[in-house]
């Protein structure tokens, strides 16, 4: 076993582990076979599992996700790749109207055990149509589970849980984290969906982050520590199930909340989380809640512009400093 594994390698490893243990797991998507995926997140799968389990598709997002749905309803556990999460819009009917509703509207007659994997987020200069953090899109639709891991170990553990789930899971792999490295992951590593992780303990403020915003929050916490402010960092890991309990427990220790979200402030996931905190945790708070989220503009191309839009360590630090008065 290698000393370290990258987030990118963890995606392929996470899928491969499940394909080894369950012959009903099959993959489909654009360029996922011989090419190993445009982000190399399916590298090696075709070689190990062959063309009957790893299927290259045409550029047909509706057919990819629709076929995955039909296969899931009839006994398979398909793992569909949508190359960039922006392209979820091309098959949004399946994620908004079909997959999350078919079990419900048939009175529980069918299940849809599928995973839609997709490369999410900005920071790589791909412009407005290949850079969005779209996890909040999925968060508007009851009936989808939403996973967004921040580390290689969580990629493997949450991929296992997602593929084994009898419910549909949208699995956001962050483009900005693909090169991130972590410790190798033991066999049978499973991270239950809906369990947030306290990745840094602190007593002064809780930073709740997701995916690429977790390392941003951790760096901000380090800087703040130098100023005598100890931030607790919660990696939410999933939006559905949303682990409100872990957030409320953390607020019981810190009394201050800052969300760190890559998706736009407008309609971002933090709005729902904060509304629950206002409803159920108001008495825990000693300060206003702050949301550090994406600016409400399309993602621009140039680095200087993109950094202006996406949350940065500096923006998080500034938001926390602003709470010092309370």
């Amino acid at each position, binding site marked *: 076993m290698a000393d370290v594994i990258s987030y990118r390698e963890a995606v392929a490893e996470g899928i491969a582990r499940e394909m080894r243990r369950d012959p*009903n797991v*099959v993959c489909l998507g654009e360029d996922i076979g011989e090419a190993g995926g445009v982000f190399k997140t399916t590298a090696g799968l075709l070689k190990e599992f062959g063309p*009957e389990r790893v*299927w290259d*598709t*045409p550029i*047909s997002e*509706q*057919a990819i*996700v*629709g*076929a*995955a*749905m*039909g*296969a*899931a*309803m*009839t*006994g*398979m556990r*398909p793992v569909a790749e949508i190359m960039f999460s922006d392209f979820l819009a091309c098959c949004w*009917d*399946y994620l908004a*109207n*079909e997959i*999350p509703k*078919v*079990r*419900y*509207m*048939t*009175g*529980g*007659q*069918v*299940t849809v*055990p599928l995973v839609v994997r997709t490369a999410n987020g900005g920071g790589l200069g791909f412009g407005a149509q290949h850079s969005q953090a779209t996890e909040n899109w999925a968060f508007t639709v*009851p*009936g989808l589970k939403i996973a967004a891991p921040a580390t290689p170990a969580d990629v493997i553990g949450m991929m296992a849980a997602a593929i084994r*789930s*009898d*419910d549909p899971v949208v699995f956001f792999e962050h483009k900005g984290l693909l090169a991130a490295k972590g410790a190798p992951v033991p066999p049978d590593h499973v991270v239950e969906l*809906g369990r947030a992780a306290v990745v840094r303990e602190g007593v002064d403020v809780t930073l709740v982050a997701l995916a690429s915003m977790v390392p941003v929050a951790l760096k901000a916490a380090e800087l703040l520590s130098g100023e005598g402010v100890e931030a607790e960092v919660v990696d939410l890991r999933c939006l*559905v*199930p*949303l*682990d*409100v*309990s*872990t957030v409320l427990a953390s607020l019981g220790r810190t009394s201050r909340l800052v969300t760190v979200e890559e998706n736009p402030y407008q309609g971002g996931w933090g709005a729902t989380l904060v509304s*629950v905190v206002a409803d159920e945790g108001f008495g825990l708070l000693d300060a206003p809640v702050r949301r550090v989220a994406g600016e409400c503009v399309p993602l621009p191309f140039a680095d200087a512009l993109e950094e202006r839009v996406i949350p940065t360590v500096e923006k998080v630090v500034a938001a926390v400093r602003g709470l010092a008065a309370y």
Partner: protein
Amino acid sequence: MEPAELLAAYEQMAVIRRTEKAAHDLFLQGLVKGTTHLAAGHEAIAVGASAALRPDDYVFATYRGHHHAMARGATPEECLAELMSRATGLCKAKGGSMHLTKASTGMLGSYAIVGAHLPMAVGAAWSARLRGTDRIAVAFFGDGATNIGAFHEALNLAAVWKLPVLFVCENNLYMEYTPIADVTAVARPAADRAPAYGIPGEVVDGNDVVAVQETVARLAARARAGDGPALLEARTYRHFGHSRADPATYRPAEEVERWLKHDPLDLARGRLIESGVPEAVVHEADERATTAVQKAVEAAKAAPAPDPDEALTDVWADGGAAWRT
């Protein structure tokens, strides 16, 4: 079809016709809410195709899908109870008219977003093949669906992967209120698209249950044998408007009259008499259908409303709806 088989098909069509009429009447009585898209006139397509399929094949239908649910074993009572918002409905009153589903008999749903279920049928056919079965999948859809992207994506993928799936277009000449010919670049909205995907495209009289059964049987055998998908355009005509709100006044009287004279039940009845089945026997089938649907209406009316808390079940596979800790 043997006479006995044709008689059974006739009776099934008679049950569907009467159920649709009952749905119409119950709507007017205020007992069916929302809308309905009645399939009266389309019966031969569902019944003929069903007669050609195996019980373990997969069927996907549209919001105009009552006939497909019943052709695959849903009872008139289950269907009417669903339309009437009863706890005993086919989908526990969570689906309604547009989503009739009977998964236990392979009828995997009625979908109300035009064309969405064609890729699903492709996926079911893919799955059947991956699991080493010789099952096939069939997607039924309207002529309007031939102009939506999912139709084209599904046909291409099914052809490229050579999957055992049949695409059956119920061409009733109108996409909602507009003649399909006015908005489609080719004369035959489904069949003329098949050559673009290198698959067989055929046209059949969708009101002739025998012709439908024979054509579907031939294309199904081909798909089952591994020769890939096919596209069948079954010409038919609605007896009602597009939906409950539509009196269908845009259809020329002469056209309506011509099609009503080409009714699927009349055609089947004529074939039965021709093949020597006594009129009294056909009449008995009609009577049985009438009685069955009357009983179904009464049973559905007597069934209870759902428990409101039922609304908070069946989101997830564990039966619940919890989205947070």
